[in-house]
């Protein structure tokens, strides 16, 4: 107990809380099962981390400018589906036959990827225009777009799944592994994460984003085009959702509109655990990456413990509440030092 009372150690523990949680998870996992550090299991953890982490980074970027994006989950699955049908239509028009036959897709992968990213970015753009230009509150606007996109996805696919097994090279981005352990998509996730961490911490980009989120009014008085930066973040989050969609489709080699239901909430939960604030301007993307790692390990350890999926829901919920409260505590402390009374 004497260690805990020491302020220096307390600070270290508070700052490195997520690392400690990850370490604890790894140790518990090792104790519970000899197979925890087996190659396959590591791959599974890293894969989960990559998928959710990418969406969490997208969500965090939007949260940093004090907005929210609830479309990323559905965008990750509808945009590849739309891309495939768009390709099909183009092939039909140019008399090259059909590329979707009986649910099986035969289009070349690069066309699908290009169109997926394009459509996902467009969804982000629609969000951006609605929120910034039309001044619809982000929460409602993105719920509306979420409904609309889901509906369009159903209309286009007629509710039937698409199979990608006949597409050449489909398994690369989601299935290939480096050294037999590390999935390629995890490397991609790390690259994206490092890029945005660098942009946010060491360039003008980060300065603009944080000041837009921290206090929009004073930022715009300082000459920052806050509307532009908000739009930019929505577009980036759309693009990242598209990349996630490509990875996810490549991993599962099939598309069904219901398969990413609720992913935006998981992404939001990871951002919360990572200490990004919903009011904008506070938080660090590094912690989002750590948090997505932690959540991946948590779900893996819980499965190892033999927890059923609904037990896992319960425990995950507890962790979200716990971390939200801990992060808020340190924020309250900061406000107290500034003599601001919280209401």
């Amino acid at each position, binding site marked *: 107990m004497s260690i805990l009372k020491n302020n220096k150690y307390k600070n270290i523990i508070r700052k490195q809380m997520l690392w400690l949680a990850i370490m604890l998870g790894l140790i518990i996992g090792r104790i519970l099962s000899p197979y925890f550090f087996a190659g396959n299991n590591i791959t599974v953890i890293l894969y989960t981390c990559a998928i959710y982490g990418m969406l969490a980074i997208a969500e965090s970027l939007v949260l940093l400018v004090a907005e*929210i994006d609830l479309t990323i989950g559905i965008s990750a699955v509808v945009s590849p589906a739309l891309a495939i049908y768009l390709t099909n239509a183009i092939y039909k028009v140019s008399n090259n036959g059909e590329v979707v036959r009986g649910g099986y897709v035969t289009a070349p992968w690069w066309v699908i990827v290009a169109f997926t990213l394009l459509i996902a970015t467009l969804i982000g753009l629609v969000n951006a225009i*609605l929120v910034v230009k*039309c*001044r*619809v*509150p982000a*929460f*409602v*606007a993105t*719920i*509306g*777009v*979420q*409904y*609309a*996109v*889901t*509906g*369009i996805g*159903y*209309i286009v696919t007629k*509710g039937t799944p698409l199979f990608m097994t006949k597409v050449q090279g489909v398994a690369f981005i989601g299935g290939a592994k480096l050294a037999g352990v590390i999935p390629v998509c995890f490397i991609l996730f790390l690259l994206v994460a490092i890029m945005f961490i660098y942009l946010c911490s060491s360039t003008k980009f980060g300065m603009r984003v944080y000041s837009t989120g921290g206090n929009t009014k004073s930022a715009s008085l300082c000459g920052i085009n806050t509307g532009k930066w908000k739009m930019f973040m929505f577009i980036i989050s759309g693009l990242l959702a598209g990349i996630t969609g490509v990875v996810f489709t490549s991993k599962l080699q099939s598309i069904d509109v219901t398969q990413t239901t609720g992913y935006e*909430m998981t992404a*939001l*939960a990871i951002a*919360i655990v990572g200490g990004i*604030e*919903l*009011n904008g301007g506070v938080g660090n993307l590094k912690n989002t990456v750590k948090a997505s790692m932690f959540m991946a390990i948590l779900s893996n350890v819980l499965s190892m413990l033999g927890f*059923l999926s*609904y*037990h*896992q*829901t*319960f*425990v*995950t*919920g*507890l962790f*979200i*509440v716990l971390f*939200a*409260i801990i992060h*808020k*505590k340190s924020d*309250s402390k900061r406000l107290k030092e500034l003599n601001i009374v*919280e*209401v």
Partner: protein
Amino acid sequence: MDKKVKSIRGFMQEVSEKTHGLFISFLILAVLLIISAIFIPKVFQLKNLENLLRTYAPGGIVAVGLSLVILTGEIDVSVGAIMTLAMAVAAKIYDFSEPAAIAAICATGIGTGFLNGLLITKTKVPSLMLTIGTTSVFNGLAAILVKAQKKYITDIYEITLSVAKGSILGIPIPLLVCLVLAILFQFILRKTSFGKHIYYTGTNKRAAWMSGVNIDRVKIICFMASGLLAAVAALLLSGQLGSSTVQLGTGYDVTAISIAVLGGISLKGGKGTVIGTLLGFITMSLMQNMLAIAQFGTYVSTTLKGVMIVLVVYLYGLTAKRKE
């Protein structure tokens, strides 16, 4: 031309200010009614109206409760999970005694609402954050309680069925519950000091706190009311469906928020009326019913629902006077 547009907007702003935003809700409802009268007159058959309002009433009840929370400037996305949890708790008790089970449903609703409210006011965590966490907790707890099994509400449970499927004077009881609650809340909001406190808290909580309003108590009571109404809605819904599963409340949170928004309640708090929510509920159910009768199917209906929500909120934004 530009001047004309401006004057129309000014007129709209004035009218909507005077009617507390109800004008827009009425306008949208009127447009829908006219469209359906011209193209789909089948909607107005009495049996259809009765059925549609009965089926969608649980969503309306949840929205009425949620309106109070949104008016205080908070949000509760765990109402769906509260519905599931309330029925899960009741499923354990139904076999012993039905009245006890119904009491347990109400108690669960109030208890979970109290928990949400307490955590939010004591820790000052933003309510969206916290209720995302508690959504997971409640959903998980519900599934653990009933081991993810289905509970059938069979003919033995007379009270539940008679409440969910019965009618008084030809009006379905779920709709009646929704109407009565909405009018009651509207009365509380307009005529009592507590109602004023809710609006003060939502408009400017710091000013409210400084003038001596116990904003923590206001928020906790609103969360409890929202939880209770969600639980009541769960009872009516599962009575109609004849069973309760662990998926019971899934999606009702977003539906309720959409209804409240359609009714002109501002997510920033302090603006809107419960009567507006009631109109939003009628609009939403009418629209879904129209699309169903016109045989558009759920896919198109989902899309149009989304477009509609965005459009309506955009309209509200246009008519609200900007204070910049």
